[in-house]
């Protein structure tokens, strides 16, 4: 059964107002460590979530038993949940019928990849590591999302995604690289491993520096992570409504350097395109920051109904199990700059730091956008405009608005960085960003040397 058939079958067993969201996954992930595959995982699953509405009382139930008995059971559990819910005057109603935009994001060749091919592509990465052992995975998947409801809504999308991710590391150094795309053919696991291994070789003998505020170049991997964490509180409607967002009270104001423009653009064929959200509302391209000016956040139907300013859903409703997080961006895209390369950014920095990747970020102060974390797998000093000696891993504590206030430059090319760690159901998303150079990056501690 494909996803829309599952959704329609679920909807049929409910009388009255209801919505069914079906999510189907066929995936394989060949995980390797120390240059051997050690955790190969193949997943076959189909989930359906029924949202039943009884006079503004809303109940939700989910199952992966999609035969007639299973669907009857899930319908009864959803009805029972609705009966226990108090009336909700703020319920915006189910989404009306929609004609979502046509998007890219499905590739037959990627969908056909099986365990043999997935293992072979992992093998290509392992071979390319050379003298540096590699740790990482190759994964590919075909997933489907469909939403059908009693309003007549019926939308479906087939998606493919593939990622090759490599940490190359030995006792003295480590490097990182990844490629993500909806076409596996656009990914070269060997190249990913070579990039990671090359960087690992350059990190050997990392030295220490004094904590302080430095100029910095962040590779797309690092900037994507920083921006993703900042977005959780600041680019979603819940953060704005609850005054947790840095944008609360600042919409329309210049908050960042004018070189910074950020959208959430799930329609971009260079990313991991999505046509609609988990309520079936068509995806919109949302202007979040335009030349440094805070322009908006993303909305779903629930938060739009709570808005006092007539906001409309932008197509960012999350899946049912994440509904209390509210709408969040899932296709962040940073406008590129003029720099031809990261080396050119290093020239702009002159004296500072070069950072490949971040690790284990934590939000210290959501309202001020302060985030802490560690650098990892490729941290270097920039001296005289050149990427120079390797450094140990560094702890940073950065107010993202400060980091983005004085931007020295961005590269002209952007990269798609995978943001899904494949928890729960497969739903590929990522951040499209160039590398960035900034005036301010606060190093607040010294960590361990790179290496395994």
């Amino acid at each position, binding site marked *: 059964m494909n996803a829309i058939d599952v959704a329609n079958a679920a909807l049929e067993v409910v009388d009255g107002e209801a919505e069914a969201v079906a999510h189907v996954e066929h*995936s*394989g992930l060949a995980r390797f460590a*120390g*240059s*051997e*595959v*050690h*955790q*190969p*995982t*193949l*997943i*076959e*699953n*189909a989930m359906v*979530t029924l949202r039943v509405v009884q006079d503004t009382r*809303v*109940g*939700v*139930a*989910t199952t*992966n038993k999609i035969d007639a008995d299973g669907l009857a*059971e899930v319908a009864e*559990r*959803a009805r029972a*949940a*609705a*009966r226990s819910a*108090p009336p909700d005057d703020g319920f915006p109603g189910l989404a009306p019928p929609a004609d979502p935009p046509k998007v890219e994001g499905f590739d037959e060749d990627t969908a056909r990849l*099986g*365990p043999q091919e997935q*293992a*072979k592509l992992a*093998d290509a990465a392992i071979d390319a590591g050379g003298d540096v052992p590699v*740790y990482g995975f190759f994964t590919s998947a075909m997933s489907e999302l469909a939403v059908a409801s009693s309003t007549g809504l019926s939308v479906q999308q087939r998606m493919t995604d593939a990622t090759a*991710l490599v*940490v190359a*590391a030995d006792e003295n150094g480590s490097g990182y690289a990844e490629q993500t795309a909806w076409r596996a053919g656009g990914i070269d696991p060997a190249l990913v491993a070579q990039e990671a291994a090359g960087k690992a070789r350059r990190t050997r003998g990392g030295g220490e520096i004094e904590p302080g505020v430095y100029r910095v170049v962040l590779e797309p991997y690092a900037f994507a992570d920083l921006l993703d964490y900042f977005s959780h509180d600041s680019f979603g409607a819940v953060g704005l409504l*609850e*005054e*947790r967002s840095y944008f609360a009270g600042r919409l329309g104001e210049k908050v960042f350097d004018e070189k910074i423009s950020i959208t959430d653009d799930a329609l971009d064929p260079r990313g991991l395109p999505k046509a609609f959200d988990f309520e079936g509302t068509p995806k919109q391209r949302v202007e979040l920051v335009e030349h440094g000016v805070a322009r908006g956040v993303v909305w779903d139907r629930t938060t739009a109904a709570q808005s006092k300013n007539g906001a409309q859903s932008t197509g960012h409703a999350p899946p049912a*199990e994440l*509904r*209390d997080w509210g709408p969040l961006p899932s296709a962040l895209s940073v406008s590129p700059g003029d720099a031809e390369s990261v080396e050119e950014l290093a020239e702009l920095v002159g004296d500072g730091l070069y950072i490949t990747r971040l690790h*284990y970020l*934590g939000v*210290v*102060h959501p*309202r001020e956008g302060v985030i802490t974390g560690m650098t*990892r797998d490729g941290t270097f000093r920039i001296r005289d405009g050149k990427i120079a000696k390797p450094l140990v891993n560094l*702890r940073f*504590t950065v107010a993202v608005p400060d980091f983005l206030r004085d931007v020295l430059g961005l590269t002209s090319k952007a990269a798609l960085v995978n943001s899904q*760690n*494949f*928890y729960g159901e497969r739903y590929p998303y990522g951040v499209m960003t160039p590398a960035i150079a900034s005036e301010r990056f606060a190093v*607040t*501690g*010294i*960590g361990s040397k790179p290496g*395994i």
Partner: protein
Amino acid sequence: MRDVCSAAVDAATGAGAEYADARVVTKRNQFVATKNGRVERLADSESEGIGVRVLVNGAWGFACDRRLSSEGAREAALRACTFARAAAGRHSSRQLAPVAPASATHRTAVDRDPFEVSLDEKVAQCLAADEGMAGPEIVVRQAMVRAQREHKLLLTSEGTEVEQELIECGAGIECAAARDGVFQMRSYPSAHVGSSCQMGWEYVDGLDLSGEAPRVAEQAAALVRADVCPTGMMTVVLDGDQVALQVHESVGHPTELDRVYGTEASYAGTSFLKADDLGSMQYGSDLMNITADPTTVGGLGSFAFDDEGVPAERTAVVEGGLLTGFLTSRETAARIGAGNGGSMRADGWNRMPLVRMTNLHLEPGSGTLDDLLADVSDGVYMETNRSWSIDDKRLNFQFGTQIAWEIKAGKLGRMLRDATYTGITPKFWGTLDAVAGRDSWRLYGLTNCGKGQPGQSAHVSHGAAPARFRDVQVGVGT
């Protein structure tokens, strides 16, 4: 379900697997959440399927299928063997520590089955607590309760057949206050989706969410007016909740032997520990005693057998400050030549078991929180985790708490906000100079421990009491 498991194991061994195990898992979750007097989420989810793990020519393979039929089981087993064969060729020889085949059943003891408690009652509990947090400057009030029942049957090609039903539930409240651009949160009994326990609904009832709600709101409102925590080297006393997180991040993860061997390097990271540190590495002061105990009553990491069929056993990880144990699988135990595993857990039927914490405790010392404070002339007392970050080797950490108080001449003084502290793991544990006693020791249950690719979320508990650390770096500049 035994027939389904058996079909998978037979298919795998018939296809050449030298070892195979099959787990049929059915998991049901209920979750009720309210926000600002409105039910935000009322959900009841169920997922079932079979996961088959095989060892073919020394290479692992894992495949799963939602269909609980002989056909689904056999197909999953054959896919797992195909993946293992495709991945074979460069693997080293793989030994598994021996374990005696077991046949057993186990069920969490409960007074009130959480799934027998009506959704009406659950909604009412949340709304009552939500209402109890109302007040000026409170901009967000949230309450949640949850329940989970996981039934699993494990069959292995070595003859183990273990059936377990694990029941857990949890609850929590949280509110946020905002004033003049200052935003502060306060939670009970823990942040990040409350606290959970492997018990019946009596656990949730005992938390008395409604009774605690006014205090939580008062503290949130007071925090927006509180002074920012000062920075500097000072004595820090942590409440049990924050000690639990400290144990989790800086002892639990680094002692997972798969991290030590590098198999988690591409995601969660590795460890500053080496295998040969066992028995020789001084992890902390002599007051530091850490045990891994999957037999703890109420622990989220409690079971009779892990997901490899190894019986639950309490083991010492740190004794008198000395590293004496790792958390292991059968494979890593064989590699290090100590123990037989016992820490392998999978997040449901569609994930491969990984080395995970079970219940990891800081053993109690003596005295009370007041006794710990009494011996501090100038310091900070911190309560309830707010932020956490630690490096990939689990050495350099920075944690923040929701609330703090200055300690002056052995007594708590003014309330402080935005408190953080930072350190290097063994150095920090070396400054431990007091742990409160058994009467202050509590079990804290976390449901958001991430690891693995594809990602897996584990539920683990930590027993902890307030503890005192000297010469800690408090605060950082930005």
